[in-house]
């Protein structure tokens, strides 16, 4: 009962904000009145598609958001982070994840070309030539890591990092086309190994440097949540248990609504209790969440059904 009240309070704060801030082009900016961006649109779309909260007006909003995503897809299948950018990047994974989650059959080819782009986007730090050079370098013990594992970078032609790797793993969970499924299988295996290689010594993840110059990296809530969600199908490993334990302890002191919402989603997904965490609605009110679309969307999803992670309760969008 208490959690239902808390959920409806969060929805009361965040849903009107999301409903009121959709741009005429169907997308959302990171803040009200700013240009539509793919990332903000993906999260707002998922929040409004949340089965427990959806109204018929929301369905229209989601359709408009879907159309925005359709018009912003680049010819190579990727999505750019900002209007005017001609190169796609990590947000491609979010688009595939979001369009997949709403189960819209009209988006099948968009998802397929996006997934193909993700599969073909290899990071540049772990090419055979780079690995050869790294072996010769005098400073190769600065941030020791296994370079035979390969994930995804934030932008093409750069290094693998924890968050874009996690997003790509989530996006490539259930490819329909056999060709993409085959490619995705290889990429997922390498990327899963990479995430385990990048766990911080005490559990949890940071951006992707668990140790630098011999000093253990500090994990962060956000990368830890995405990694744990991406690895939820291999939950029995010791690194996962240790990281969940870290997250559970840390979440009790989190005072920012974005991290708190994400921690809530993650711990619930793993069926973990959330002891001592501040009520999300209180933190949202106190912090003003700086009018951040992502935070509002994550907060709605934190009170929802996890449909976007493939849980039951998912609906299908009408064409």
């Amino acid at each position, binding site marked *: 009962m208490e959690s239902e009240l808390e959920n409806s309070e969060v929805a009361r704060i965040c849903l009107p904000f999301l409903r009121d801030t959709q741009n005429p082009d169907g997308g959302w*900016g*990171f*803040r009200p009145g*700013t*240009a539509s*961006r793919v*990332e903000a649109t993906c999260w707002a779309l998922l929040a409004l598609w949340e089965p427990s909260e959806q109204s018929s007006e929301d369905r229209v909003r989601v359709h408009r958001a879907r159309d925005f995503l359709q018009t912003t897809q680049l010819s190579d299948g990727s999505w750019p*982070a*900002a209007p*005017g*950018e001609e190169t796609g*990047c*990590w947000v491609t994974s979010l688009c595939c994840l979001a369009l997949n989650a709403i189960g819209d059959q009209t988006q099948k080819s968009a998802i397929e070309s996006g997934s193909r782009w993700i599969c073909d986007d290899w990071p*540049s730090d772990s090419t055979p030539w780079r690995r050869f050079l790294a072996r010769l370098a005098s*400073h190769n013990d*600065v941030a020791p890591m296994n370079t035979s594992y390969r994930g995804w*970078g*934030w*932008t093409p*032609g*750069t*290094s693998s*990092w924890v*968050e*874009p790797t996690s997003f790509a793993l989530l996006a490539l969970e259930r490819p329909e086309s056999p060709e993409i499924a085959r490619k995705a299988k290889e990429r997922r295996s390498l990327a899963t190994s990479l995430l385990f290689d990048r766990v911080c010594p005490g559990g949890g993840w*940071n*951006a992707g440097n668990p140790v*630098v*110059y011999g*000093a253990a*990296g*500090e994990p*962060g*809530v*956000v990368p830890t949540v995405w990694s744990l969600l991406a690895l939820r199908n291999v939950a029995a490993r010791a690194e996962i248990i240790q990281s969940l334990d870290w997250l559970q302890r840390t979440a009790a002191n*989190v*005072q*920012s*609504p*974005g*991290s708190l919402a994400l921690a809530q989603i993650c711990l619930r997904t793993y069926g973990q209790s959330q002891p001592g965490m501040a009520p999300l609605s209180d933190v949202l009110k106190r*912090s*003003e*969440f*700086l*009018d*951040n679309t*992502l*935070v509002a969307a994550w907060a709605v999803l934190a009170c929802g059904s996890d449909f976007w992670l493939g849980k039951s309760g998912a609906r299908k969008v009408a064409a």
Partner: protein
Amino acid sequence: MTLRNQTLTPSFQRPPSQVVIRRVGSYQAEIASLMFESLAPFGLQVKGKSILLKPNLVGLDPEGFINTHPTVIAAARECFLRMGASQVLVGDGPALDRDTEAILESVKLREHLGPLRNVFVDLNLDDVERVTFPTRASRLRELFLPKTCMGVDFVVSMAKLKTHHWAGVTLSMKNMFGIVPGACYGWPKNVLHWAGIDRAILDINAAARPDFAIVDGIVGMEGNGPTQGQPKASGVLVFGNDPVAVDATCCRVMGLRPEGVKYLSQAGTMLGHVQVDKIQQLGETIESTRSSFAVLPAFQSLK
């Protein structure tokens, strides 16, 4: 006219730069009034102008030696408002943690500035515009940069006095990496590393052209900076109208040779002054404020 609208002048054609060093014992001191006095010699024309203060907010920092201290940020805001600025925004795009609000909470910025909604701009999530680099020092050629940063009349880089494990030092020029939006380039902004950190620093500073620099060295960081080093109480604030000169002076205060810092030595040819005889030193002397900062083995040559 903001520096961004002026063409780059080779350093040998520039007048000498001014740098003020002030001794400040702790964050409990009367920083705003001291800062107001320190800004006076510069005769800054900021009346009616919009200003962006760009602090260094790298990560969660409950102990207060990683990020520009909120007391210093609040003091600068108060000073520029007192000098007649029409609007003084505070903005940064943290490089390692995408939950900017968590960082603001950890440094208690709200307690120092009041409600942040119309004061703080998360540059990671700001609207962006395509900016072509006039310097072409790196292979980047252009980046999408925050409209707030490119649109205000006056930008103040407010760095922390720190050593850095890749660049040697991180001061007011390296601090400008924080304007590069994470929503486009990620956390960290890895595209800058691939372009070469030193060269990317030059490009970004040539494009964004901070008009003024304030470095918080009341407590800085030595060793494995920017986040894993040790606190170093240097007890100084450094101010200047040329970020290159400010950074060169800070290096000297840290007991390091600015000519050995790659990006600084190159910046000394086109963005400002590194040479001592081109910097008009006001306030305390370098000698009287110098304290030797520990550096990682890779940067021992800076000593």
